[in-house]
């Protein structure tokens, strides 16, 4: 029997099938010995006699033949808990019980009457013992029987639940996921108190044996999507999973695209809302970023805030986000095209003003734009990577030296600086950073198109882009839903956000079939008439 690690394990959790690449089944199971000392020594040596492996011998006549040996990895467990609930009761019991029963009788005594922990299991092999130890269990060997008890004592320092750093809202829940998967699962469960919430676990990573949970709501999520997610997860063969992006790269539909087909989020409320819409969440141990799939293009422009603010301002902001996304993708390209090919499109006064600014600039507009864009990308990257203490220096160098001095030196025109700056700012408006990155990359190719062929080039670029987008899928869902394919009912939550009671059905494609589920206008509101 394989084990499920963690604090809240109980027998009702479906057992995880030992992922075939996880632990090598080929190495034959080593049965436990009757002697506690042998068992403890063997386990310790298989762990390389690491200093954090603790064996506590209790009772008996000699260390080799102790009545009970408790083995645990000190760095993974909760010291207080193991002391209060395991070691202390065992010692008191053994001390009180002078005749010292052993074997199965002792095992059952310990399991039923003495050890005060939530879950308890009997194991028979060393491999099971090792797996249990590495997941923060403690193993209790009893003299005279080839079995051992394992119980949950996992603990250790964890970051507490905090305000999400990457996705902030003004109004709404202010807690974010942490690195601890059980905390994260709890955060979701506490929002969706439904027995239909399914959390199925897996171990992925040959060495890291990372816990991965697939969460969905039975009856809302499409079974085919859930199965597809499970299938893709099972197919992953990798040494280690450090962050959910490892999994994302394995399960995403298309690698060679700038557009993300899996969303990540560190907000429990967003994950819960996605589950309620029929999406599937993939929660990975060790990272606060939970994956959500399937997603469509327009999902990336929905901020959690949209649903917490009034629908009018939410709609306005969402439109703004769509516009700025295209601005961040197109603005430099449009500027290049207009100033080098289509000067007749500008109002005369603007043209003259731009022409005056460009007077004496040595580079073509395309090169000028590339220079500034690359400069900005360098600044941005420096801003993310540099140690916090050097922050102000970067802003001074960036703003003054590069911006102002470049203009004064006559290397770039002030209008270009404005265009690049606005482009950069509008890129930050997008609530999900991975779609903003897509715009960032596409911007450069569109600039090139504009520099080569003007508006015609931009148009060509956009056509190629749209063709690509129309062909993308995320777990079987067309990426551009509900525009292509056109689904009228889903439009209420795309460019605008309709009032909550107006969104009567769940997103069809994600939820599978049309279902009246969300809400309807309250009767008292409907009946109200102006007097």
């Amino acid at each position, binding site marked *: 029997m394989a084990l499920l690690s963690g604090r809240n394990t109980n027998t009702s959790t479906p057992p995880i099938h030992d992922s075939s690449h996880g632990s090598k089944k080929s190495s034959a199971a080593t049965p436990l010995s009757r002697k506690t000392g042998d068992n403890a020594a063997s386990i310790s040596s298989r762990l390389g006699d690491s200093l954090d492996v603790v064996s506590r011998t209790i009772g008996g006549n000699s260390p080799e033949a102790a009545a009970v040996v408790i083995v645990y990895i000190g760095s993974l467990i909760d010291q207080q808990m193991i002391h209060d609930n395991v070691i202390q009761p065992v010692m008191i019991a053994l001390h009180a019980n002078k005749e010292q029963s052993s074997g199965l009788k002792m095992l059952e005594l310990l399991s039923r009457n003495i050890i005060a922990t939530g879950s308890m299991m009997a194991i028979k092999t060393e491999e099971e013992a090792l797996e249990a130890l590495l997941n923060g269990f403690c193993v209790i060997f009893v003299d005279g029987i080839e079995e051992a008890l394992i119980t949950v004592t996992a603990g250790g320092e964890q970051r507490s639940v905090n305000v999400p750093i990457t996705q902030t809202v003004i109004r709404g829940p202010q807690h974010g996921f942490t690195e601890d998967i059980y905390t994260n699962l709890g955060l979701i469960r506490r929002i969706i108190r439904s027995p239909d919430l399914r959390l199925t676990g897996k171990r992925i990573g040959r060495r890291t044996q990372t816990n991965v949970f697939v969460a969905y709501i039975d009856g809302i999520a499409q079974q085919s999507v859930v199965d597809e997610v499970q299938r893709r997860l099972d197919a992953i063969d990798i040494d280690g999973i450090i962050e959910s992006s490892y999994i994302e790269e394995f399960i995403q539909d298309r690698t060679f695209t700038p557009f993300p087909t899996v969303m990540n989020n560190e907000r429990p409320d967003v994950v819960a809302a996605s589950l309620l819409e029929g999406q599937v969440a993939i929660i990975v141990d060790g990272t606060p970023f939970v994956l959500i799939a399937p997603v469509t293009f327009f999902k990336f422009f929905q901020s959690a805030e949209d649903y917490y603010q009034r629908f009018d301002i939410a709609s306005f902001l969402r439109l703004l986000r769509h516009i700025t996304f295209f601005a961040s993708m197109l603005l430099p390209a449009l500027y290049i095209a207009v*100033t*080098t*090919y289509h*000067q*007749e499109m500008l109002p*005369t*006064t603007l*043209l*003259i*003003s*731009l*022409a*005056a*600014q*460009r*007077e*004496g*600039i040595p580079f*073509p*507009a395309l090169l000028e734009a590339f220079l500034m864009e690359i400069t900005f990308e360098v600044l941005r990257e420096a801003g993310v990577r540099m140690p916090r203490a050097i922050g102000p220096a970067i802003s001074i160098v960036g703003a003054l030296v590069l911006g102002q001095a470049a203009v004064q030196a006559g290397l770039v025109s*002030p209008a270009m600086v404005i265009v690049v700056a606005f482009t950069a700012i509008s890129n930050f408006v997008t609530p999900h950073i991975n779609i903003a990155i897509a715009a960032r990359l596409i911007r450069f190719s569109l600039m*090139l198109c504009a*520099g*080569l*062929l*003007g508006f015609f080039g931009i148009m060509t670029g956009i056509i190629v882009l749209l063709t690509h987008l129309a062909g993308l899928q995320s777990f079987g869902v067309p990426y551009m839903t509900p525009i292509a394919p056109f689904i009228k009912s889903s439009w209420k939550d795309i460019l605008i956000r309709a009032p909550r009671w107006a969104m009567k059905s769940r997103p069809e494609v994600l939820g599978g079939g049309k279902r009246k589920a969300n809400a309807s206008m309250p009767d008292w509101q409907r009946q109200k008439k102006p007097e």
Partner: protein
Amino acid sequence: MRKRWVQIVLAIAILIVQSGCWNRVELNELSIISATGIDIDDKGRWRLSFQLVIPQAISSTTGVSTNAAPVYVFSTEDESMRGAVRKSSLELSRKLYFSHNQMVVISEKAARYGIGTLMEAYMRNADARETVAVFLTRESARNTLEQLVSMEKIPGAAIQHMIQNEAANGGSFPQTSVFRVQQELLGGTHATGIPSLMLAGKGSSFDSLNLMQKTHSDIKIKLGRLGIIKGDKLVGWLDAEESMGAMWLANRIQRTVLPFPCAPSRKKDSSLRIIDTDTHVKPVRKGNRFVMDVHTKVSGTLYEYSCDDDMTKPATIVKVQQAIAEEVKRVMQTGWKSLQRQQADIVGFGGAVHEKFPKQWRSLAANWNEQLDQVEVNYDVKVSVEQTGMSSNSFHSKQDKQGG
């Protein structure tokens, strides 16, 4: 797969290199034309003058001294218009850029010779915009382009705004674009009116920034008369009042101030601000001749009123409205008479007849302009004074009342 990548990379690389050969033009490789002038010499050679904008001298952002003139004027000559444009490269470092041309000025001599060549050039070329304003001038066109306009940086744009302002708030002269000229000259009557520019004042020329240091200028550019084009040639002129009459008939008055005498004996010392006006022409056959019924509705606010009438009485308002109607009628008559004299229907009567009597028009079209004196016009002007302004009775009458 690798081969495909090589192909893509090669295609991009080649395209980048090619871009230099295509029509990519950086902003600082353009010479932006703000106005074009057209003269003709005795041998029939066109002399094209261009007013080029010097962006550095106009935009205040660059630190270049603002003592430089904002525009540069030069001329080229050739027997064809485009030939003259081509010759610009003999003396210019940058490509001539026509898309932002604001106006074209035609000298009287060139207009009398015929503007067909110009219209042809505008119709055939993509970079010449038909929205450009057209003017005539008695002087040479080049001289007109050389004039600066106070308060404005680009004279071409300034003059274009001048005619816009006049058409919207004055009403004596129409805003005439190349497109409109083409439309009317290709229309039934082959006649149109083009406003003219003139140099007014006693100085010689307002062509130096030094003259801007004074609080006034001795000479300035002004809208003068309306030139009548028939066929494609200039045939005569209308003065401001005659032109305004024509504008009334052509329903091209938008908002203007109309001075009128409040009593028959007085001078025109009262005025009405016209808010809305509409003229409708209805041709009626009378034997072989045509009678044009002109129905005009005018509504406006009283701006000035100099008589002593009691404005609180409705009867007075009726009287005022009659006085205004008489004045409008008089202006229209003045305009119509001068058009009959010039034998040019620029107000669209021909078009109205064409619409109503298409069969008869076929025989009339050929010499409609020459038979204008056969056309009788009936005027029916309805005026409504909507408001009397912020006061009712005139200042004088109030003073008298207090005194008495």
